[in-house]
């Protein structure tokens, strides 16, 4: 999987959890999941589970704490994949 594919996969996961007044076009690598995309903090839990399934990795609590922006998430995913 290339970086672009990772981004696309993550993008498709995130867009389901956007509130009705935020469109998928607002998602970029720089987006802050809670502050900019207005994702409900409870839903971050679900995004983590979906990411685990999609990339076949396991994310720990500290990973979740560091996952503020889309870019953070991609970095964590990449590092987990390279550890495999």
């Amino acid at each position: 999987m290339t970086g672009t594919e990772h981004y696309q996969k993550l993008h498709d996961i995130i867009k389901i959890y956007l509130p009705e007044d935020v469109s998928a076009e607002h998602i970029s690598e720089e987006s802050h999941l809670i502050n900019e995309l207005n994702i409900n903090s409870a839903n971050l839990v679900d995004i983590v589970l979906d990411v685990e399934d999609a990339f076949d990795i396991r994310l720990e609590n500290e990973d979740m704490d560091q996952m503020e922006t889309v870019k953070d998430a991609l970095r964590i995913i990449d590092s987990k994949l390279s550890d495999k």
Partner: protein
Amino acid sequence: MGKRVVITGLGVCAPNGIGLDDFTKALQDGTSGIRFDKQLEDLEFACQIAGEPQLNETLINQYFTPLQLRGLNASGILYGVIAGTDAWKDAGLSIAEKEAPDWDSGIIFGTGILGVDKFRESTHLVDSKNVRRIGSTTVLQTMASGISAYLGGILGCGNQVTTNSSACTTGTEGILMAYDRIVSGKAKRILTGSCSDSGPYVWGGFDAMRILPRKYNDNPTKGSRPMSASAAGFVPGSGAGALILESLESAQERGAKIYAEVLGGAVNSGGQRGKGSMTAPNSHAVQRCIREAVESADIQSADVDAINGHLTATSKDPTEIKNWAKALKRDGKDFPYVNSFKGLFGHCLAASGSIESVGAVLQFRKGQVFGNVNCDDLHTEILELVDEEKIPRKTILHSAKIVAKASFGFGDVNACVIFKAFND
């Protein structure tokens, strides 16, 4: 003098019809919603028939966002949101603005148990040491008040938002709780109703109690036989019914259509004393509940034109008829018309009171008393008390002025509500 209370909206998600048009037609025509259930057969239930609303994806997508549907595995929430949202729209009410709730509108939407399938999912995850995989919505789907919470968020209600639970009286009790809150001026309108999940994990306990029919697996539509000599137990069902109760002044200010007036009612318990038990009603309490409902409505027992009974199709049906006859002091040709909709969709448990109340109220609209099915062989103890013509086997034209609806539940609890045709 408290405020007068009327019904301005109805919604229903029933085994024999989703939406008012289909449901009304099914009740008028005697169309059954009871079907053979393959899953119950696979799991070797003795009773393999059930009444379950026939949902499909297109319909569900009209009521839920893709996000709400993510991991949603609680059929009661599907039914309740469909019925509740429909009732809201039917009453011509709008959804609260994004910034502030509608302080005058509340929700009292009951259930017996919610999100059973979701709970099962999480039980497996917990047992396999995977609690971290449960996801964020398990709590919301399995808390009893999940249904009022979902509806409250969709509609933006800012008055009391709660869930009542009293076994099979839940739906009828909820109507009276809503009534009380409006009479006392604490709310202008309440969306009230109830829902019940589908499936083997809800119905299994009843199968184990041996109170479901076992001989109709090849003939599902004949399985639910209220008031019949061959009644063999209740057919398990599921779904949701919903009603908008509103103060008369609010309804008139809005120019809302009015289905009927709620005159009053009563709830009580037999205390599991006398012949009452956890599972059997104390007849004195039932009679008292009916009498108190009549008094609360400020009518005479002679004024009751039609009864929509609890009448589940067990051996207790004759006892219920006896209780009505004693409480109202009426029998023979003087007995009101009586029907049970359970012949058509089984016993929808916590949802039964609300689904059946929706049906009972629709009778005013149509000037009809909907017919009973599967009771051509009326129980002899019932015939000793009630003239046969008072138990219509086909839908009849009759503009009832007063309809009494009762529900009874495990725990020896009772509820009876009095509806009146509205003409002002």
